[in-house]
C-alpha cells in the first residue's frame, strides 16, 4: 500500500470502510497512515486536498473548516460529538480531534439522521390493510380508530397503533366430533346429549375488543358454553338431536350476542353451527332401536297397504268379470246359463274319472283302494311333469 493508494481508496470507498481503514492505520501507527492526518490537522487542507474529504459532498463544512481550523463551528462540534460518542476509545489512540475524525463523524451524523428518518417514517406512516382497522392510542389514551389505507400517527411513545382484523370470521370449536372427547349437555327432560359445535365470530369494534376484555377468547368460549347449555336446557332430547337444532343455533347466537353486548366486548357473533348432537354412546343402542322400530312400523304399514291393494283389485276384477257376464246373462238368461253350465261340466268331467251308476237294482261297488292307488300313481307323474 502507498499513500496514493490510500487516496484512491478514500475516494471510492464508502465512509464505513474508510473509517475502518483509518482506525487500522491509527492502530498500526504507520507513517502513511498517520502522516496525512497530522498534516491535515495542522495545515487545514493545504497539502492533500484530494483524499481529504472527497466522500463528503456538502461544501459549507469544508469551507468552515478552511476558514476556522482552530475554532470549530457548532456543526463541527456536533460532528465531533458524533465521533466521540461512537468510539471514544478508538479515537484516543489516533491523533485527538483531527480533521479525519470530524469527517467520519459527519458521516455518522448523516447515518443517524437517515436512521432516525427511517424509524420515523416507519413509526408514523402506517399502511392499514383492507381487512384491518387500527386503534390509535395517544400517550396511552384512546385517540381514534382508523380504517384501511395509509394512515399517519405520531411516533411512539406519543402515539401507538394496534391493528386488528375486523373482517376475518374466526372459528372456535367447542366439544369435538371425535367420539373420545365428550361434551355432555343436559336437556330439559334430564337426558344427556353429546354436543359439538362451532362459534363463528368477528371483531365489530376493535377499541372495545382491545380495552374491555382481559381474555377475549376465553370470554367468548365461556359465554358460548354457558349460552349453549342454557338453551339446550329448554329443549327435549329428541328435539336437541333432531329438528330443534336450527332453533337452538339461533337462540344461542342471540343469547351470546346479548351477553357480549352487555360486556361491551365489541364482538359480533356471526353464527353457531352444531356439528354433532348425539345421544351418549351408552344409550346409543336404544336410540338405534327406536329407529329400527320406526322402520318396522313402516314396513308393517307397507305390507298392509299391499294387502289392501291386492284385495281391492281382486274384488274389482272379479266383480267386473261378473258384471260383464251378468250383462249378457240378462239378454238371454236361459242360454247363457246352460252354456256356462255345460262348459264348466265339460271342463271338469273331461279331466276326471267318470263312473256312471244306474241307481235302481245295481249295488255299486266302489273300488276305493283302487281309486287311491291310481291317485297316488298320478301324483308323482304330475310332480315329474312340473
Amino acid at each position, binding site marked *: 500500500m502507498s499513500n496514493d493508494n490510500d487516496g484512491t481508496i478514500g475516494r471510492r470507498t464508502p465512509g464505513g470502510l474508510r473509517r475502518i481503514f483509518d482506525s487500522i492505520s491509527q492502530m498500526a501507527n504507520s507513517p502513511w497512515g498517520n502522516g496525512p492526518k497530522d498534516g491535515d490537522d495542522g495545515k487545514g487542507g493545504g497539502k492533500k486536498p484530494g483524499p481529504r474529504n472527497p466522500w463528503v459532498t456538502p461544501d459549507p463544512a469544508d469551507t468552515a473548516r478552511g476558514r476556522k481550523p482552530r475554532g470549530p463551528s457548532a456543526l463541527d462540534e456536533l460532528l465531533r460529538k458524533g465521533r466521540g460518542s461512537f468510539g471514544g476509545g478508538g479515537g484516543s489512540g489516533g491523533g485527538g480531534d483531527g480533521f479525519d475524525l470530524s469527517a467520519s463523524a459527519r458521516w455518522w451524523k448523516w447515518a443517524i439522521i437517515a436512521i432516525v428518518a427511517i424509524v420515523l417514517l416507519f413509526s408514523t406512516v402506517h399502511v392499514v390493510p383492507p381487512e384491518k382497522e387500527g386503534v390509535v392510542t395517544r400517550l396511552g389514551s*384512546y385517540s381514534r380508530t382508523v380504517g384501511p389505507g395509509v394512515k399517519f400517527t405520531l411516533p411512539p411513545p406519543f402515539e401507538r397503533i394496534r391493528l386488528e382484523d375486523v373482517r376475518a370470521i374466526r372459528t372456535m370449536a367447542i366439544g369435538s366430533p371425535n367420539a373420545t372427547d365428550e361434551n355432555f349437555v343436559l336437556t330439559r327432560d334430564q337426558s*344427556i346429549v353429546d354436543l359439538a359445535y362451532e362459534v363463528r365470530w368477528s371483531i365489530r369494534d376493535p377499541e372495545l375488543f382491545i380495552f374491555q376484555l382481559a381474555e377475549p377468547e376465553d370470554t367468548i368460549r365461556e359465554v358460548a358454553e354457558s349460552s349453549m347449555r342454557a338453551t339446550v336446557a329448554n329443549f327435549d332430547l329428541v328435539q336437541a338431536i333432531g329438528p330443534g337444532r336450527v332453533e337452538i343455533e339461533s337462540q344461542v347466537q342471540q343469547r351470546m350476542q346479548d351477553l357480549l353486548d352487555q360486556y361491551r366486548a365489541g364482538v359480533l357473533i356471526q353464527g353457531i353451527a352444531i356439528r354433532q348432537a348425539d345421544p351418549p354412546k351408552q344409550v346409543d343402542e336404544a336410540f338405534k332401536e327406536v329407529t329400527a322400530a320406526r322402520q318396522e312400523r313402516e314396513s308393517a304399514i307397507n305390507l298392509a297397504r299391499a294387502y289392501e291393494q291386492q284385495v281391492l283389485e281382486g*274384488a274389482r276384477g272379479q*266383480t267386473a268379470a261378473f258384471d260383464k257376464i251378468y250383462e249378457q246373462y240378462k239378454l238371454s238368461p236361459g242360454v247363457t246359463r246352460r252354456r256356462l253350465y255345460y262348459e264348466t261340466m265339460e271342463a271338469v268331467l273331461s279331466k276326471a274319472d267318470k263312473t256312471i251308476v244306474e241307481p235302481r237294482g245295481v249295488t255299486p261297488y266302489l273300488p276305493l283302494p283302487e281309486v287311491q292307488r291310481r291317485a297316488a300313481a298320478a301324483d308323482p307323474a304330475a310332480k315329474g311333469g312340473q
Partner: protein
Amino acid sequence: MFETLLRRPMRLLIAVLALLVLVSMTVSVVPEDKQALILRFGEIEATVNKYKKGEDFGRSGAGLVLRIPFFDNIQFIDKRILGINMERQQVLSTDQQRLQVDAFARFRITDPVRMYTAIRTEDRLQQQLATILGSSLRNELGKRTFATLLSPERGAVMDNIQVALNREARKYGAEIIDVRIKRADLPEGATLDAAYNRMRTAREQEATAIRAEGQKEAQIIRGNADGEAARIYAASYGKDPEFYDFYRAMQSYRQTFLGENSSGATSIILSPDNEYLKQFHGD
C-alpha cells in the same frame, strides 16, 4: 454551560441520558385498559384513570401522569373485565341429586384503592372471588331441586348468586358483572348410569310404542280393505243373487277340479239322473 457541554460530547450524552431517566421516572403513561395508583411511601396518594361506568374511551383518565421520582411509586391495576374460573364443584340439590357444576363470573375492579388495600393483586383477588363463588354456588344450588337448575328459573338462581357474590366482591373493590353456570353435569358413576338407564328405558318404551302403532295401523288398513272389498262385491253380486249363486258355483267347480291347487285325480260317480246327463237318456 451549554457551550461547555457542547465541547464535551460525552457529557452531553450523559446529560441527555440522565434527563431521559428523569423523565421516565417522573412521567408515566397510564394506558386505556389500566387504572393506576400513585403511592408515596406506600401511602395511596392518587388514583388515575379510575373506572367510571359507561365512559367512552378517549375521554377517560388515561394518559400521562407525573410523579416524584424515588418518592412515588406507581401501581397499575387492570381496568378491563376479568374472569373468574371456578374449579368444578360437586353440588347436592335438595332432591339429593348430585351435580357437577362449573361456573364462571366476570368482574371488574371498580375501586382500585379498596382493592389494593384489601388484597393487592388481581391474581389474589381472582382466587379469592373464585372461592367465594364456589361457596355461594353451593349454598344457592343446595336450596334448589335438580330440575330448577335446568329450567328457565336458573336465571333467578344465577341472579341470587350474583347478588351474594357482589356483596363480597364489593369489599374488595370489585363489581361482579355476570355469573353463569357453564356446565351442570351429572357426576360419573351411579347418577350418570341412572340417567343413562332412564334414557334407555324411555327409548325402549318409545320403540315398543312405535311398533305397536305400526301393527295397529296395519290392522286398520287391512280391515278397511276387506270392508271395501265386501262393499264392491255386494254392489256387484247383489244385482242378482240367484245368478251369482250359479256363476260362483261354476267358478268353484272349475277351481276345485281343475285349479292349480287341486291335487290328485278326481273320480266322479254320476247318477244318470244327473242334470248333466239329462240328454243321455235320449228322451
